[in-house]
């Protein structure tokens, strides 16, 4: 099993170490403060609190009776800060795309709040909603179905300006669209072409340009590169990172590819069956995971290096994800967990820093929803 003494050294937290050293010169008390204070990120731009989405299951034709609900998202809370990327990972059916739809207000939340700059946007409608939507844009997964084949690239990218005419004066739009094409690395002369004349990677660039058109602060990316070839994926990921620096964008990056999420994210949240299992910085999650599900997920990722593979421990989960219409009692992961005990069936574990790590400053001290949280490095060869 995992060696816990490894976690006593903040090996990968190099910025922390230098901070502590610098503070050590100033005095003992300040050094302690430097460890305990969270990294300064300013105000969160988006605060999600207890977000719930249940899709009703009904029976009967005329008199529809509700016989249950698919609990797609069941109480999720997280913050998104200005200029950061929050990655959300999880298997299919865990509710990550529903979260995206809820934040875009494409679905109405059953309960819970989404605060954008302190304002609860789930209750908005009409003009106020339209104003908020301008600042939250989305890039979709499939570049083949998310672009209208009968519209030219210029019309697709310019469409947001029709909805928000105040963003660009009428005569100026063509120039704006060409600028956007240039920003995402496409030839501005392609403005009159149709989507079928572009490759998958180029189409995804068009999708990104459309997302950028209104100068949003938040872009929600739902599996933006999973439909692309490996060599093209890197191009799009690099473009997204460049744009983030240029426009100070916040990304909510939803994907199932854990390697890509680590590459692009500052913080990562792991979802399982509509709940957040673990959330923390990329080093905390990938190098010091404490939730068994995260550990299993990480250990199952094939690493493109045969040498590294041989020393790795692999946790093969049995069975499939249970149905979200009828999730297990207590901890939702307990049916597939090797640590499960009676307590797990009775008590729902809360997403919090585990008690045993609370007093120490190890990277294992991050929020994890497990009764028996324990650090275990599954990514690096033993």
């Amino acid at each position, binding site marked *: 099993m995992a060696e816990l003494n490894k976690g006593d050294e903040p090996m990968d937290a190099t910025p922390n170490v230098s901070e502590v050293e610098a503070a050590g010169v100033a005095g003992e008390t300040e050094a302690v403060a430097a460890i305990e204070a969270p990294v300064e990120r300013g105000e969160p731009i988006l605060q999600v609190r207890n977000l719930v989405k249940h899709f009703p299951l009904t029976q009967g034709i005329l008199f529809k009776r509700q016989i249950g609900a698919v609990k797609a998202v069941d109480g999720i809370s997280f913050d998104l800060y200005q200029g950061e990327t929050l990655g959300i990972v999880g298997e299919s059916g865990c509710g990550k795309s529903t979260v995206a739809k809820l934040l875009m207000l494409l679905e109405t939340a059953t309960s819970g709040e989404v605060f954008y700059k302190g304002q609860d946007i789930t209750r908005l409608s009409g003009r106020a909603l339209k104003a908020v939507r301008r600042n939250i844009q989305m890039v979709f997964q499939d570049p083949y179905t998310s672009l209208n084949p009968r519209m030219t690239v210029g019309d697709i990218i310019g469409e947001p300006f029709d909805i928000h005419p105040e963003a660009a004066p009428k005569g100026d739009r063509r120039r704006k669209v060409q600028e956007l094409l240039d920003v995402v690395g496409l030839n501005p002369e392609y403005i009159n072409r149709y989507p079928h004349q572009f490759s998958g990677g180029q189409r995804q660039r068009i999708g990104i340009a459309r997302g950028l058109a209104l100068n949003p602060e938040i872009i929600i990316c739902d599996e933006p590169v999973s439909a692309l070839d490996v060599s093209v994926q890197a191009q799009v990921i690099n473009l997204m990172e460049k744009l983030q620096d240029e426009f100070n964008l916040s990304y909510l990056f939803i994907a199932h590819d854990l390697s890509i999420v680590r590459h692009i994210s500052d913080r990562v949240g792991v979802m399982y069956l509509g709940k957040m299992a673990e959330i923390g910085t990329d080093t905390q999650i990938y190098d010091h995971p404490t939730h068994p599900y995260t550990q299993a997920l990480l250990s199952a990722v094939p*690493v493109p290096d045969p040498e590294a593979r041989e020393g790795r421990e692999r946790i*093969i989960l049995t069975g499939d994800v249970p149905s979200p219409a009828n999730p297990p009692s207590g901890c939702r992961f307990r049916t597939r967990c090797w640590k499960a005990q009676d307590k797990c069936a009775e008590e729902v574990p809360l997403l919090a820093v585990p008690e045993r790590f609370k007093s120490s400053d190890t990277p294992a001290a991050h929020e994890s929803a497990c009764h028996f949280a324990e650090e275990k490095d599954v990514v690096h060869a033993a």
Partner: protein
Amino acid sequence: MTTIDKTMSVPGPRGGSESGAPLLEVRDLHVEFHTRDGVAKAVNGVNYTVDAGETLAVLGESGSGKSVTAQAIMGILDMPPGKIPRGEIRFRGEDMLTMSHEERRRIRGQKIAMIFQDALSALNPVLSVGYQLGEMFRVHQGMSKKQAKARSIELMERVRIPAARERVNDYPHQFSGGMRQRIMIAMALALEPDLIIADEPTTALDVTVQAQVMDLLAELQQEFNMGLILITHDLGVVADVADKIAVMYAGRIVETAPVHELYKRPAHPYTRGLLDSIPRLDQKGQELYAIKGLPPNLTRIPTGCAFNPRCPKAEDICRTDVPVLHRVTEQGGGEIAGRGSACHFWKETIHG
């Protein structure tokens, strides 16, 4: 229940068949498609061999010809518009392309079986899973319905589908993605073939399920000492299961190597670019290396080396001469078993 085990190193290939000829040998295979926009040259001279018990991974992006090669081996290419103008596909020394339809039918399913990517569309939605599995026994071995059903239940247990006896009459949509893929594997294994072609068998699955399915496949392969051709674009999956790798680009094999060698020191700029462009799980990198440009249109493959417009090392010779698959040697000239690179500058790529 969950098992935790240390992954052991993959055992090497277990030698060829008794007759001396490899299990499967593809020689100078060409496939083209005649379309309105011209002739798309999907496969342009592919050579590879697979022995019993060996896993060959064919790695490539979409449009590299990896699936078309597999379809040609299985004999399920749509012809027309497909056409095989040249080449040989030898199964145990016999060329399958010159066989009659009846002879090929006897090989297909019994000797060579295929696992498809998307189990939901590969299975018939209006027939029960048990009926579809049993079809193999009824058609190829003339079993009765009752016998076939009994064998189907056995097979489903073999691929670890829980409560197989109760689920044998269920329809494909009643199974989860991982279970459906297990049924596909069961179907391919039904007649204990000598060779299995798996075309992206886990691409549609989640990582935890992907690990289950790949483990099962590797275990069954070892048990029956089958040859396996694994077609994929995922460099991670390949590193986990393959013995040797063939990298394809624009219908040609650009590099062949044993699995450890390829990842340690690639000998083709395309392979190197691919390896550099994937983010790593165990370390946080800086900016990703991106291969510039796009894969070529198969109706207009560039002259010379097909990779030359995207290659950082390209020189004049690359634009005029098609590189052959050079034998890759150590710096001192020593032999490296099984390595080849179709690059004029392979020496510089691997050694310098």
